[in-house]
C-alpha cells in the first residue's frame, strides 16, 4: 500500500459523505459493503521521519461517520468476542454513524477506561477486527470496519472538547489500597477501587507516570499529553500518587501493609527486565536494550538533544533485533534521532511478526529496511570496544513449534557481515524480580511471573497482581482487563471487611 495524503482521503470521503448523509436508516448491507475503507490520515513519511509528532492524525468527523456506516450491526456481534474487555462495539459505532459522539464515548467507557490509548495501540487486526464480518466478507482483515480508529476518534472528540467526565466517587470508606506501578494495569485498578470510596495511593518507581505508555511507547505513536490527561482525571478523583518510590527498596511491601495500614495491595509492576541474546559482543559500546534506548529517548527526552541532559548515542547505521512493537518503536525512534539507515532483523518472516500491522506499514513507509529470516550471531567491535559490525546468519522456516508458529532453523554456513555502529536488542522482556525477591512467600512461575488465581489474587492474602507482571510482556488492553478483574476482587474483599466491622460494632 502506498501513502495517501490526508487531503486526498478527505476529498474522497466527502463525496461519499454527501451521498449517505442522513440516510443511515435506509442503507442496506449491500450499500454498506460498497463503502470503501476510510484510510487513516497520516503525516507525510518524509516529514514525520524527522519529527516526534504523532504519525496517525486521526479521522475528521465526516471520515468517522463514513467509516461507521460500514458496520453491518451484526446480530451475532463477533467483534465483541474479539475484544478483551468486551466493548459494545456495534452500539458505539452506530452512535458515531448517527453523529451522537458523546453517547458513543459513554458506551465505550462502560467497558474501557482508556479508549484514547487503546484506540491507538491495541492490535485490533488480531482482536476485534480479526473477527469482523465485513473483513471476512471481503476476505481481507485490512478491509474490516476500522474499529480502533473509530474508538480513537470518539475518545479524542471528547478530550478535545475538554468534556472528559470525572467518574463519581462513593463516600469514603476509610479503607486503604496501595497500587504498585502506574502502567495501564495500575491506573485501571486505581480508578475502579477509588470509585467505591476507598483511599488509593499509586507508588511509582519513576518520576513520571504511565509505565510503558510513558517510557516505552514513543510520542509519535502515543502523545504524552493523552496519558497526562487520563492521569489528571484520576487525580481529580482523589487518587494519590507517590513518585520516586521503589516498593521493595524504598519500603518493603510487607511494611506497606503492616506499618502503613494498607488493607490491600495491587502489583502492576510490568515486565521490566530486558532480555539479551547472550551472544559475543553484546556488551560492546553501542549495544542497547530497547528499554534503555527508548527510556533515554522518551522518558528522559534525549530526543530533544538541545535541552535534555541525558545523552543518546549518535548512530549512522542501526540494526534492531526483534519483530514486535518494541522493535518497531526502537527502529523508528533511531531514524528520528538521525540514523541514516535502520535495519530490522527478524528470525522469522513478516507474517509471524507480532508487531501491530499499522506500525510495520508505517515503518516501511518511513524507509526502515526489513531483513527477514536472519539473526545476529555475534557483534563485532573495534579496539575501543565500540560496535563496528555484526555477523548474521540466515534462517529458513521449519516445523511448527508448540505455539503453532513455524520454527526458524539456521542455515549452516550462511554467515555474512554487515557494517553498523549501533545494535538495539528488542527480543522481549522478562519480569523484574525486585518485589518477589523481597517477599519470598509470593509464588512466581519459572519465568518469574507472579502466579494468581482467577480473581487475580496472588499466593499471599490481600496481595493482587495483574498486567505484564502476571502475563509476561503482553498488551495494554490485557493489562487493563486484568486490572478490572483485580479491582473487582479488591472491592469485594474490602466490602466484606466493612460488613464484618459493622457487625462487630453492633455486637459490641
Amino acid at each position, binding site marked *: 500500500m502506498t501513502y495517501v495524503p490526508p487531503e486526498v482521503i478527505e476529498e474522497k470521503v466527502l463525496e461519499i459523505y454527501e451521498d449517505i448523509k442522513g440516510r443511515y436508516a435506509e442503507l442496506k448491507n449491500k450499500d454498506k459493503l460498497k463503502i470503501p475503507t476510510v484510510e487513516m490520515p497520516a503525516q507525510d513519511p518524509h516529514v514525520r521521519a524527522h519529527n516526534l509528532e504523532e504519525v496517525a492524525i486521526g479521522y475528521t468527523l465526516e471520515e468517522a461517520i463514513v467509516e461507521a456506516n460500514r458496520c453491518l450491526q451484526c446480530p451475532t456481534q463477533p467483534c465483541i468476542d474479539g475484544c478483551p474487555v468486551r466493548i459494545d462495539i456495534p452500539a458505539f459505532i452506530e452512535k458515531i454513524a448517527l453523529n451522537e459522539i458523546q453517547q458513543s464515548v459513554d458506551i465505550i467507557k462502560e467497558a474501557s477506561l482508556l479508549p484514547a490509548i487503546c484506540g491507538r495501540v491495541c492490535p485490533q487486526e488480531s482482536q476485534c477486527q480479526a473477527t469482523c464480518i465485513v473483513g471476512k466478507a471481503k476476505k481481507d482483515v485490512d478491509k474490516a470496519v476500522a474499529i480502533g480508529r473509530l474508538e480513537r476518534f470518539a475518545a479524542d472528540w471528547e478530550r478535545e472538547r475538554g468534556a472528559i467526565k470525572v467518574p463519581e466517587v462513593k463516600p469514603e470508606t476509610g479503607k486503604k489500597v496501595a497500587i504498585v506501578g502506574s502502567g495501564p494495569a495500575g491506573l485501571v485498578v486505581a480508578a475502579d477501587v477509588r470509585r467505591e470510596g476507598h483511599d488509593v495511593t499509586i507508588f511509582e*518507581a*519513576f*518520576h513520571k507516570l504511565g509505565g510503558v505508555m510513558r517510557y516505552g511507547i514513543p510520542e509519535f505513536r502515543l502523545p504524552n499529553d493523552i496519558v497526562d490527561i487520563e492521569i489528571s482525571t484520576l487525580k481529580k478523583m482523589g487518587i494519590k500518587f507517590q*513518585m*520516586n*518510590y*521503589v516498593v521493595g*527498596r*524504598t*519500603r*518493603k511491601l510487607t511494611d506497606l501493609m503492616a506499618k502503613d495500614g494498607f488493607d490491600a495491595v495491587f502489583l502492576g509492576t510490568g515486565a*521490566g*527486565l*530486558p532480555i*539479551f541474546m*547472550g551472544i559475543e559482543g*553484546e*556488551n*560492546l*559500546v*553501542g549495544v*542497547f*536494550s530497547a*528499554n*534503555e534506548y527508548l*527510556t*533515554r529517548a522518551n522518558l*528522559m*527526552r534525549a530526543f*530533544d538533544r538541545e*535541552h*535534555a*541532559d*541525558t*545523552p*543518546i*548515542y*549518535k548512530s549512522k547505521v542501526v540494526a534492531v533485533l526483534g519483530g514486535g512493537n518494541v522493535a518497531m518503536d526502537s527502529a523508528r525512534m533511531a531514524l528520528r534521532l538521525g540514523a541514516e539507515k535502520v535495519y530490522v532483523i527478524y528470525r522469522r518472516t513478516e507474517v509471524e511478526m507480532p508487531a501491530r500491522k499499522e506500525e510495520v506499514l508505517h515503518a516501511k513507509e518511513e524507509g526502515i529496511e526489513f531483513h527477514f529470516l536472519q539473526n545476529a550471531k555475534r557483534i563485532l567491535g573495534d579496539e*575501543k*570496544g*565500540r560496535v563496528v559490525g555484526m555477523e548474521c546468519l540466515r534462517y529458513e522456516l521449519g516445523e511448527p513449534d508448540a505455539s503453532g508458529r513455524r520454527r526458524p532453523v539456521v542455515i549452516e554456513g550462511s554467515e555474512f557481515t554487515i557494517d553498523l555502529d549501533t545494535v538495539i536488542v528488542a527480543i522481549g522482556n522478562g519480569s*523484574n*524480580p*525486585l518485589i518477589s525477591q523481597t517477599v519470598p512467600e509470593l509464588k512466581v512461575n519459572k519465568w518469574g511471573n507472579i502466579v494468581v488465581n482467577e480473581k487475580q489474587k496472588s499466593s499471599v492474602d490481600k496481595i493482587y497482581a495483574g498486567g505484564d507482571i502476571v502475563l509476561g510482556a503482553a498488551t495494554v488492553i490485557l493489562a487493563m482487563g486484568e486490572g478490572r478483574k483485580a479491582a473487582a476482587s479488591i472491592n469485594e474483599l474490602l466490602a466484606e471487611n466493612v460488613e464484618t466491622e459493622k457487625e462487630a460494632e453492633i455486637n459490641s
Partner: protein
Amino acid sequence: MSKILYKEQLSENVYLMRLEAPLIAEERKAGQFIILQIDEDFGERIPLTIADANAEEGSITIIFQVVGLTTEELSLMNVGDAIPVLVGPLGTPTHIKNYGNVVCVGGGIGVAPLHPIAEALKAAGNNVTIIIGARNKELIILEDEMKKIADEFIICTDDGSYGRKALVTEPLKELCERDPKPDMVIAIGPPIMMKFCSETTRPYKVFTQVSLNTIMVDGTGMCGGCRVNVGGEVKFVCVDGPEFDGHLVDFDNMMQRLNAFKDIEEEKHHCHIDKLVELKEKEL
C-alpha cells in the same frame, strides 16, 4: 522532592550534602546508593552512594565530585534548595559479616562510599585496616572519620604531598604478604584503581570486592545500561551490585562502557559553559 539541609565543600571539586529523605534514611544499608535528577523534565539520572544517614533527622549524606553537567549544577545548589527527583535506596547492600582481617582501600572520592562499609565491618567485629589514597593532599577526604574506625591506617598520595608517596596498591601488596594475610579486601575508587587492586590481590588469592559505578538510567534493573561482565556472566550493577568479586570483573569492558557518551557529554559541557558565561555576562 528533597531539601538540601547542609552543604560543605570538602576539597576543590568535592562536596558533601545532607538531604532530607526520611524513608531512605530509615531503610538504607551500607553499600546502597540513590539516584537523583536536578530537573524533573530534562535532567539526567545519576547514581550517588549514600555515605551516611541519620534516621532521626530523616536525612542522608551524599559526597560527590564535580565531573559532569549534573554534579556541576548540583554543586551550585544551596541549603534550602530542593532536589526534584531522589529515589532509593537502590542496589544490594554490602554483605557484612565477621571475616577476620579486612582491608578497606579507598581512592579519591571512593572514600565516601567506603566509609559506611568500613564502619559496618568494624561493628561486625573485623580487624579493619584502612588505606586511603589520592593524587595529592588537597584531595584526601574523610581522613578523621576513617581514622576513627581503623585498627591500622595508611595514607598515600601520588605526589608525596601527604603520607606515603605511593599508589594504594603498594601497601596493599605488603599487607597481602603478611602472615596472616587479609581475609577480605574491599576496594572502592576509580575503575583503574579497582582493577589494579584486584590484580594485586589475585596472586595471593585474597577475596576482593569492588564497588562499580557504571552509567545508569533507571537503577531498578529495567534498562540494562549498567551491565557488566562478571565471570563471563552479564550482571546489572544497579540490582546485582554495586559490589562484585574484583577477580571476576571485566574492567576493560566496563571502562569502555563508561566512556560511551564521552564525546556527546563534552560537547554538551561546552554548550553548557557557554550558557553559564552568557548568563553571567547578562548579570553584569
